[in-house]
């Protein structure tokens, strides 16, 4: 191993295999690159663009719900068909084309090689192929909006016979393209998932035991395993659905012996593990950010790890709580109610660990820390309201009302939006070598958080008061047109517009700071994990000298060290056991 001398402020001087960086054609560098960092940025940019589309749909149909049948600024009249298409595509885009790519693929691709001390993903070409398959899938989805009949409008859960019969959904090619786009996206994430798991398991730096792996990597690996184990039936289900739609088969056609409830089971068998697949990476980012800005060791590394593995396993037993009143046998509902309420325990465990990490620490309210703390606060509301829906008795009233929407937006918003903002603001200096503008970040944070709460708190109450979801306009329901309900809906819609506009601040800050922001050092936050041990932005081969790991990533304020952080790859000064080469 190349000898490296300790320079003045404790950073090993960089020597070793710096291959000369020849300038490539921009296409090879940006679109055809096998460098995990470039592929991560490709996923990130695609995810953010899709978030714009999903967000715009949200603004439009939220406006239509508050001011029925009036033309929506920047869109025009919202017809029932375009309303259904927008809510369906909003759900599909936000889960499959924003949360999964940004949280799982963008950060997974960027962080796993850096955090385990490798120079790239184990299969670079497969990694590039997985992004390209994902790109094809998002192109197919966008294309499905413009085919005759328009985009698919039968809700993102695509229950047959509405999704199977084009005489019912009136979007003959739109519905098939939607199913094909989602199935191709699953293939992309199977390829990506295998890459994440194998890299995290095999390409770990010498000396990095399983307990030294940062939790962000662990969480993405558990999420990929869960995705791999749960997506199979839905791939088979989508093949059956496409055959039902186009080739006249009768898998889900009730008139000839098919069974629509079978699709619901296949969909939600994947659906519920899927929401934990996007939750775990966000928890992983929190496990990285909270200790750094509270300068304190994470409360329970093994507690967090075992309870997320527990959540992963339990998440396979709970799926039918989405179907309590949709035709399954009522006796089954009791089983799923019990497992659903019990799954709140490991998640409560994880929240206790995050809160306990803050105990007796020294919290520094930087923008990433603000996002991380707001994640904990908002996710508590989301997690807590889930129990109402998991308990079968209460779900009779709450199923498919705005209470359900408010619940899963209080979980999805912290996961997809707050989680990725936390990750982006925290790792931006490493990704682009420059700092984001701190003041702008704070303004964007406060406007987004306040407007988010103003969107969804009122809708909890409209949900209890009987507003059902996916209803085009409440003007047709006399009981729902009372002045208080109308006011609550208008507050929520205006807050959606405010939040939409506030995102301009983020995009401006993001793209402006990429070139004009303050230069960032290699380790601006004095963090321990390996990605801060290489220059920012890291060159092609990441580490000049491949690091060796000596300790866990959360050794902050260790009593017998004067500096309050202890990087993973810093050899212990004399005392402490020296880990032999290749220990695993």
């Amino acid at each position, binding site marked *: 191993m190349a000898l490296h001398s300790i320079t003045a402020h404790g950073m090993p001087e960089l020597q070793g295999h710096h291959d000369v960086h020849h300038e490539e054609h921009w296409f090879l560098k940006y679109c055809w690159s096998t460098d995990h960092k470039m592929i991560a940025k490709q996923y990130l940019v695609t995810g953010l663009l899709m978030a714009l589309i999903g967000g715009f749909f949200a603004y439009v149909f939220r406006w239509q719900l508050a001011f029925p049948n009036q033309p929506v600024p920047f869109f025009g009249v919202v017809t029932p068909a375009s309303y259904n298409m927008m809510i369906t595509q909003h759900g599909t885009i936000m889960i499959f084309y924003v949360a999964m790519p940004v949280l799982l693929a963008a950060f997974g691709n960027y962080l796993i090689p850096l955090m385990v001390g490798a120079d790239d993903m184990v299969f670079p070409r497969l990694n590039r192929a997985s992004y390209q398959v994902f790109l094809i899938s998002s192109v197919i989805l966008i294309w499905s909006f413009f085919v005759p009949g328009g985009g698919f409008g039968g809700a993102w859960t695509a229950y047959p*016979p509405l999704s199977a019969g084009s005489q019912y959904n009136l979007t003959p090619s739109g519905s098939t393209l939607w199913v094909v786009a989602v199935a191709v996206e699953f293939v992309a994430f199977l390829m990506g998932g295998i890459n994440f798991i194998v890299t995290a398991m095999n390409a770990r730096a010498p000396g990095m035991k399983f307990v030294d792996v940062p939790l962000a990597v662990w969480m993405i690996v558990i999420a990929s395993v869960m995705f791999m184990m749960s997506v199979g039936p839905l791939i088979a289900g989508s093949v059956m659905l496409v055959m039902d739609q186009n080739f006249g088969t009768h898998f889900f056609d009730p008139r000839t012996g098919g069974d629509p409830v079978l699709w619901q089971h296949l969909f939600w068998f994947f659906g519920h593990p899927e929401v934990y697949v996007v939750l775990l990476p966000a928890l992983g980012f929190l496990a990285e950010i909270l200790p750094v800005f509270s300068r304190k060791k994470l409360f329970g590394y093994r507690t967090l790890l075992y309870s997320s593995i527990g959540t992963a396993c339990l998440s396979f037993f709970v799926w039918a709580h989405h179907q309590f009143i949709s035709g399954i046998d009522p006796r089954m509902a009791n089983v799923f109610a*019990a497992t659903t309420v019990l799954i709140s325990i490991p998640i409560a465990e994880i929240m206790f660990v995050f809160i306990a990490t803050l105990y007796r620490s020294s919290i520094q309210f930087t923008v990433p820390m603000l996002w991380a703390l707001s994640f904990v606060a908002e996710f508590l509301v989301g997690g807590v309201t889930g129990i109402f829906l998991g308990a079968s008795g209460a779900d009779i009233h709450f199923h498919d009302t705005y209470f359900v929407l408010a619940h899963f937006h209080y979980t999805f918003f912290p996961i997809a939006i707050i989680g990725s903002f936390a990750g982006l603001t925290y790792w931006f200096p490493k990704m682009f070598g420059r700092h984001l503008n701190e003041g702008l970040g704070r303004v964007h944070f406060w406007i987004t958080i306040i407007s988010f709460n103003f969107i969804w708190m009122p809708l909890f109450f409209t949900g209890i008061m009987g507003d059902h979801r996916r209803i085009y306009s409440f003007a047709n329901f*006399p009981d729902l047109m009372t002045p208080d309900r109308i006011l609550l809906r208008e507050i929520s819609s205006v807050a959606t517009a405010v939040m939409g506009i506030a995102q301009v601040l983020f995009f401006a800050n993001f793209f402006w700071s990429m070139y004009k922001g303050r230069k960032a050092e290699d380790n601006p936050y004095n963090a321990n994990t390996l990605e801060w041990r290489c220059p920012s932005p890291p060159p092609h081969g990441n580490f000049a000298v491949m690091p060796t790991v000596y300790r866990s990533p959360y050794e902050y304020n260790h009593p017998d060290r004067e500096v309050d952080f202890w990087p993973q790859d810093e050899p212990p000064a004399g005392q402490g056991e020296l880990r032999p080469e290749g220990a695993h």
Partner: protein
Amino acid sequence: MAEQHPSHESGGIGWQPLARSVFLTTFLGAVIVVGTVLFYIFAGGEDLIARLIPANSSFAGDIDFVILVIAGIVGFWFFASLFAFFVLLYQSRRRPGHKPEYLAKHDHQLHTWVSWPHWLVIACDLIIIIVAVKVWHQVKQVAPPADTVIRVVAQQWGWTFRHPGTDNKLDTVDDIVTIDRLHVPLDQVVHFELQSKDVMHDFSVPVFRLKQDAVPGRTIKGWFKPVKAGAFDIQCAEMCGIGHGLMPARIFVETPEQHAAFLEDSARNASVPGGQSIY
């Protein structure tokens, strides 16, 4: 930079005073929350949910009770953890001279901190499961004997209701079939057979806390017993295509005289069902 924090004894960490104060404030906050919820439940607060949406069927009160029990338990944990969260945020903010602690592994106090909420959460979950399953069994699995049976057929973008007519038996000549307007007698157990002709629909009467999907190809039975007269909304609660938001229906809970009048005048011009204006 490595100034020594005064209270940082090298040996044991100063748990006791801090823990006691944080524990006390959390407990106090929790007691207040649980107290208010219990007050509402037992001091006539039964209609806490009913104030938002009327409870007009026999099992609506039971479902509201389940919601309130969950609200009480879950509210306690929510406010307790949020309270602890904000206390810790304020208390551990970065101040000059304040040095964070380093928690060694397997600290005894550390485990007590985590284990007692752990068991309490499990206990609360069991209570919630028992309450929820009891109500679910009572509403969805068993039904009191039927005073009258109706058939609800959902189809793309309209509801067809088949009333048994004067002989109170379905599929007889005197059945009354109406579109989007259901007439049921007050204070009687009404059983319904739910079917769908084409796609998934959902027969939901929010004020009755009644919701059941209509799965095409299946007949699903259910029951409700209206306890308050009046006209209420029926909503479709499962995406069924373009007209999903445009297929409202009305349920008319009628006193015996009104119901008799309805039966009688429907029998008179029973030749054609005749829809009503949709405005």
